[in-house]
C-alpha cells in the first residue's frame, strides 16, 4: 500500500508561524482528549487490530494544521502538526473540521460523506475502515465530552463552532 502524501493544502505567507503557534497551544488539549478517550473506550483498540501502529493523518481542510494520530494503546500519539512538518502517514483522512468531528460522533455517515466527495481518504484503506468502525462503536459524543472537559467555555466554543458550519456548505480550502 502506498504511503499517503502530505496534505494538499498550501500555506499562505505567515501561516507557517501561525500553524506552529496553534499546534503548541493545542497540544495539551489533544493529549488530554486522547488519553480520556482511550481510558473511557478501551474496546476500540481491539477493532483497530494491527493498525494500532499505523500513523493516521487527519487533515481538516480549512485549518492551518493537520492532526497526527497513532492509536497505539502503549504509546498514544495525537498531536497537531504544521502541514509542512507532517509525517508520512499510512493513511490520510481529509475533510472539513466539523464533518470529521461529526463522523466521530456518528452525526454523519462516512460512506455518505465519501459518496458526496466531502470526505477523502488515501493510503491504507483497511486502516481507515478499521479506525472508522472502531470510532463508530463508541457510545456518546466525543465533541460533547471534550467540550465538557473545559466547562462552560468549552461548551460555548463547541456551540459557536456548530453555528459557524451550516450543514450544506463546504468551507473554502486554503488554495
Amino acid at each position, binding site marked *: *500500500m*502506498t504511503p499517503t502524501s502530505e496534505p*494538499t493544502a498550501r500555506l499562505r505567507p505567515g501561516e507557517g508561524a501561525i500553524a506552529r503557534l496553534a499546534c503548541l497551544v493545542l497540544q495539551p488539549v489533544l493529549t488530554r482528549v486522547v488519553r480520556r478517550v482511550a481510558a473511557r473506550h478501551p474496546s476500540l483498540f481491539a*477493532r*483497530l*487490530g494491527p493498525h494500532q501502529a499505523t500513523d493516521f493523518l487527519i487533515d481538516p481542510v480549512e485549518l492551518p494544521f493537520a492532526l497526527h494520530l497513532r492509536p497505539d494503546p502503549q504509546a498514544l500519539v495525537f498531536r497537531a502538526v504544521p502541514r509542512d512538518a507532517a509525517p508520512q502517514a499510512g493513511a490520510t483522512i481529509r475533510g472539513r473540521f466539523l464533518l470529521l468531528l461529526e*463522523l466521530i460522533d*456518528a*452525526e*454523519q*455517515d*462516512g*460512506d*455518505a460523506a*465519501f*459518496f*458526496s*466527495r466531502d470526505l*477523502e*481518504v*488515501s*493510503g*491504507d*484503506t*483497511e486502516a*481507515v*475502515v*478499521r*479506525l*472508522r*468502525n*472502531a470510532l*463508530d*462503536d*463508541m*457510545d456518546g459524543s466525543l465533541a460533547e465530552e471534550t467540550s465538557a472537559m473545559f466547562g462552560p467555555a468549552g461548551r460555548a466554543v463547541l456551540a459557536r463552532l456548530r453555528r459557524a458550519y451550516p450543514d450544506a456548505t463546504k468551507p473554502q480550502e486554503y488554495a
Partner: protein
Amino acid sequence: MSLAELICPAGTPAALRTAVDAGADAVYCGFQDTTNARNFPGLNFTPDELAEAVAYAHTRGTKVLLALNTYPPAGKVDLWQQAADTGARLGVDAFIVADMGVADYIARTYPGIRLHLSVQAAASSPEAIRYYCENLGVKRVVLPRILTIPEIRQIRSEIPCEIETFIFGNHGLMVERRCSLTNYLTGQSTNMDGVCSPASDVEYVRDADGSMSSQLAGFTIDRFGPEEKAGYPTICKGRYTAPHRPEGYYAFEEPVSLNLSRLLPELIEAGVHAFKIEGRQRSKSYVRGVVRAFRAAVDDIKAGHEANIADLIALTEGQKQTQGAFDTKKWR
C-alpha cells in the same frame, strides 16, 4: 395485512443498540470471521459482544438474527457449525443461512430455532423455496432483488413460508451469490470469505485536478471528476472503457442504492412479511436515519395513513436511488 417487520443492520454493538432504539423489529448481525457476508476489518461481533447485544435487544422486545450466510469451502464446515453452536447458546432468534449443509446442520441440531434463507441462496422460484421449506424447515425466504411486485405476490401464494425483501441500501445484485469478480482480482471470495472488494486491496488516488481514482488490487475501476459523486469500489459498479465506448461506461451495474419507500404499501399488500435494510458496514448515523424513517413509514401505513417518507437520498450510493426490478423488469 402482513406483519411488516423491519429487519435492520448492525455492524457493531453500538449500531445494534442504535437500531433497537430507533424502532427495529429485528436486527441482523454477524461474527468477526468468514461466516458472514460482511466480513470487513474492524466490523462485527465477538461472542461476548453478541451475548450483551441479545440481552439488550430482547429486553426491549427486539429479535436478533445471526447471519451465517456465506458458503463453507468443501469439507471445511467447522467454523460455520461452531458459529451456529455459539449463536444458539447465546439465544439468537433465527439464523440467516445460504448453504444447504449449514442449514441442514442447524435444522438437525437446533430444530427450535428459526431458519431464514439468505438472499445469497438465490431462491427465486416457488419450487426452489418449497424445497428449502419442506426439507430444511425454512420459515422465511429473503427474495433476490430481481422480482416485480406481481411476481412476489404470485410466489407468496405458492409457498408455505414468510417473505422478506430488501427495501433500502446497496443494490449489488448481479446474480446473487454467484459473483466471482472480486475473487478474480483479489483471490478472496465474496461468497466464501465474505468480502466484496476487501479494503486491503482498495486504494483511492487523488489526482492534481481534484479527480479521484478507485483502484482494486492495482486495477483502476473508476475515476470520478472533481465534482462527481462517488460509489463503492466494487468491480460490478466500475466504469470501463471499451473499443465501442471509449468515453467509459458502467458495463455491469451503476453506483445506485435501492429505495422502495414509495412501494411500501404495495409490498405490504402483496404479503411481504418483513423488510430488510441493507448496511451492516454503514455507520450508526445511517442506521439511525434509515431505521427511523422506515419505522415511521411502516407505522403510518399500518395505521391506515399515507406514509410520510423521509428523503434519504444523501445516504444513497452515488447519491442516486432506484426501485430496480421491483418497479419494472426493464430496469437497467
